[in-house]
Structures are given as structure tokens and as C-alpha cells.
């Protein structure tokens, strides 16, 4: 008995976007990084010394004159915001049934993300620790 021959499909496949698969992967990779970044952030800011009572302008100035913490916070900002936006995008797709509702909710979501990312990034890069005249930081001593 002859083996039936299977012909190759004649209609060419459309090039499909891998966006959903990539965002699925992004959630897992960014999630693992965020566990380290966010739990480290909480430990440093809330568990050491006087915890939340020690946080003031001078505390932030002390951290953000150090490129290590600037990089830490910048990565945390971008990864957390993109991770959160992608999570909310999934939730909107799940529960908002009308096309127009989904469109407006997602427009609002993306607008808020641009706002948070631009504001947060600007603040980290343009922060001036010497705004405080009483600062004891080396960079502010002239």
C-alpha cells in the first residue's frame, strides 16, 4: 500500500506577529528581575535603621548621588511600569467586551504609562541633591 502523499499547503502563510508570545516571555523575565529589584528596594528603604521614618530628601539625595542606585531605580521603574502595563492590557482584553471600551481603556493605560516613564526617568536623571542648602553631601560642598 502506497504511503499517502501530503501536499504542502498552497496558500502562503501570512507573516504572523510574535507580539503576544514576546510579551508572555517578557512578563516572566521582567518578573524574575523585579523580584530582586523590588524586594531589595523594600528591604533597603523599610527594614534598615528607622525604616520609613528615615526617608526624607537627604535620604533620596544620598541614594541618587550614587550611580548604582540611579541604575537600580531606573531599571525598576521601566521594568515595573512595562510589566504592569502589560498585565493591565491583558486584564482589559479579558473583561472589556466592547471594542470601543477596550480602545479607550487601553488608550488611557498607554497614556498613563508614557506619563509615568517620562516623569520618572526625568526625575532620576535631573535630580539635584544640592537643592537642600543644609546638605552635607560632598558634591554640595564648594
Amino acid at each position, binding site marked *: 500500500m502506497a504511503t499517502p502523499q501530503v501536499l504542502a499547503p498552497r496558500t502562503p502563510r501570512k507573516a504572523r506577529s510574535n507580539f503576544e508570545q514576546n510579551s508572555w516571555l517578557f512578563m*516572566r523575565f521582567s*518578573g*524574575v528581575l*523585579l*523580584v530582586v529589584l*523590588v*524586594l531589595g528596594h*523594600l528591604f533597603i528603604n*523599610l*527594614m534598615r535603621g*528607622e*525604616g*520609613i*521614618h*528615615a*526617608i*526624607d*530628601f*537627604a535620604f*533620596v*539625595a544620598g541614594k*541618587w548621588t550614587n550611580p548604582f542606585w540611579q541604575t537600580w531605580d531606573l531599571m525598576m*521603574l521601566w521594568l*515595573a*511600569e512595562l510589566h*504592569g*502595563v502589560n*498585565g*493591565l492590557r491583558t*486584564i482589559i482584553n479579558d473583561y472589556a467586551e466592547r471594542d470601543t471600551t477596550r480602545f479607550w481603556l487601553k488608550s488611557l493605560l498607554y497614556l*498613563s504609562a508614557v506619563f*509615568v516613564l517620562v*516623569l*520618572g526617568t*526625568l*526625575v532620576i536623571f*535631573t*535630580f*539635584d541633591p544640592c*537643592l*537642600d542648602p543644609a546638605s552635607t553631601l560632598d558634591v554640595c560642598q564648594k
Partner: protein
Amino acid sequence: MASTPAGTLYRGREGMWSWVAHRITGVLIFFFLFVHVIDTAMVRVSPEAYNAAIGAYQNPIVGLIEVGLVAAVLFHAFNGLRVVLVDFWSQGPRYHRQLSWAVVGLWAALMLPFMWRHLGNVFGGGH
């Protein structure tokens, strides 16, 4: 196996409830991040503006809300690692239920020292 069929409502066990809790805590954290970026942006305005904003977090009532926030973050973090294990570890799906209880255990093990420390800071003086 449930002994009696009960309608059509899906009532999953650990898997479904951790999925529900993951969504709720995720949304909460997302909205907090929005607020937290804005309050931190006050460092760009003036030291007084920032100290006033962060002063709100040092209020005892907000201090209690922070316990809820950290509870949400810790659960979302450990449950997220469980999701990664279920997806990428060959034995993950087999042990997903045990992993769920490990998440709850780890969460409780870290919440206790955190509450001890944080509530001590919030109610026990500072300035």
C-alpha cells in the same frame, strides 16, 4: 473529586485562587506605582515638597496600608516565581499545588518580621 456536581460554576482550588490573587495584587501594585512615581517626583520641586509628600507615608494609618502593600508585593513576587516554575520547570505542573502552599508559607515567613519591624517604626516613635 467533588462528590456532588454543583452547577456550572468553575471552582478551582489552589491554582484558581492564586490566579485571582495574582490579578488583584497586580492591579493594586500598578496603581500604587503611579502614585509613588508622582510623590517621588516631588524631590524635583523642593526638599520641603518631598518631605511633605513622604510625611504622608509616615502617618500611622498610611503605615497600616503599607503593610497591605508589602503583603501584596510579596505575594505577587513569590506567586510569580511559582508561575515561572510551572511554565519552565519540567516538574512544575506536577507540584503546582505544593508550590502554592510554599508561596503562602514564604509569604507568612517574611510578613512576620516585616510587620514587627515596620509597625515598630510606625508606632514606636521615630520622630
